């Protein structure tokens, strides 16, 4: 039972981790686009 509850908690954390990772990757892409496109304009 304890293992199961731990597993649920870990899954929840991992889902949060994926969301955090996607947000961070998005920020990195926007920064790249800004630094590149600003020069192209």
């Amino acid at each position, binding site marked *: 039972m*304890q293992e199961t509850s731990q597993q649920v908690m870990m899954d929840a*954390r991992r889902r949060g981790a*994926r969301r*955090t990772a996607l947000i*961070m990757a998005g920020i*990195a892409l926007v*920064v*790249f686009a800004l*630094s590149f496109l600003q*020069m192209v304009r």
Partner: protein
Amino acid sequence: MAHAATHDHHDHHGAPSNFFVRWCMSTNHKDIGTLYLVFALVMFFIGGSFAMVIRAELFKPGLQLVQPYFFNEMTTMHALVMIFGAVMPAFVGLGNWMIPLMIGAPDMALPRMNNLSFWIMPFAFALLLSTLFSAGGAPAGGWTMYPPLALQGGSVAQMVFAIHLMGISSIMGSINIIATILNMRAPGMDLLKMPVFVWSWLITAFLLIAVMPVLAGAVTMLLTDKYFGTSFFNAAGGGDPVLYQHIFWFFGHPEVYIMILPAFGVISEIIPTFARKPIFGYKAMVFAIASIAFLSFIVWAHHMFAVGLPLGAEVFFMYATMLIAVPTGVKVFNWVSTMWGGSMTFETPMLFAIAFVILFTIGGFSGLMLALAPADFQYHDTYFVVAHFHYVLVTGAVFSIIAATYYWLPKWTGRMYSEFWGKMHFWNSVIWVNVLFFPQHFLGLAGMPRRIPDYNVAFANFNMISSIGGFLFGASQLIFVGVLIHAVWGSKKKATDRVWEGAKGLEWTVPSPAPFHTFEVPPVINDDELAHGHVDH
């Protein structure tokens, strides 16, 4: 403290026995941390061998050993290898190993991406180093890659692609660290209870995500200028070479803090342990790191004082740069205050940490001198700059990496290193590094330019002293390798779980060596046992 009730029953699913599976396909934060650290050590010696070529050529005036173009390749490659191949991966390795242990997480949040982050690096550096054997030669325009100079040399495409790969690796590593720290902390490990090392990496990871894409943008424009007929930085086509310098240093200045903030974190772990006192001013330390990170974004043009900036810009960047001395001073005073009245002992990690505080501060002071825009017109592009950034990067970043290795090595290997040889390594390093870099201040003040293979005979004596220091500092690092090999394979002295009498924090509650899997059941956090004591007095 927390009880890591994790270990005995997990031994049956330890590390894979197949070498290839274990090391090439690893998703374990400890193994990937080890890979990063070994990679960084190899790169440290490759980059160091380039430095030996530079110091050998500069041993006396005149051209004697290498062709000028090869000398320029050496200065460029030394910097690229040391910055992107040695210092940054070493800190990522330390972060990989220690962050999950320090916050009570079973692993990094995204273990497979962690594997990919590491395995990009050897290919990136194989590509970069292969240019030394290519027909066009290696990049030779300096690590800053200023156009048009950098575009005139060989291997621009390989250099740009290698930098893209390193950038992708760094960004993925940073994403992983942020996701781990924000989502994987054990219950009760609030943000303001985290060890300073974890805080320093969290802030560094945000810096990396903010600036590595800017470098990627800049070098992509270099690539298109070179091969696709664009004129971003080509004045003849309506572009502006100074624009490149702005973009590069918008990355480049935060980059130097990327290399020093985790060092601050390491030192903030080691000094309380060996002073047997909680860190003085925990919150101030965290906010100081955050302040330095913020300020790092608004000081970039202090690298460009001599390029012809408007007076208002020179004044702004001068004062903004000098402002960084305030949070940095907070940190130095807090380290000293932590030691004040402590029951200090001087094991090897503590010796390196104390040397860090003193010598990094010297590098900080020469940085303040360089921040003065009028004075910088004299210092710009001289050996004074070389002396300055080697004090902050070698006696700063590299010393902290060495200190961290000695500090956590018994936890990693389960065996104590040789304290005698550790101290031999320390005293040789600290003496010869000063013989190597201190005379370069005098050379710079006397006007010796950087990045030249030949020089006026007036500079001969200090160059010879500096080269002797360089050879002996380089040789001293072989002691480090010997100590590491002995600690991993030869040492008979077992490490205890806590290892150091004054050590506090979750990482010391797991056995030594740290089992393959830790904290599969989250630990219970006891505030009294945190390295910085009670946060809310």
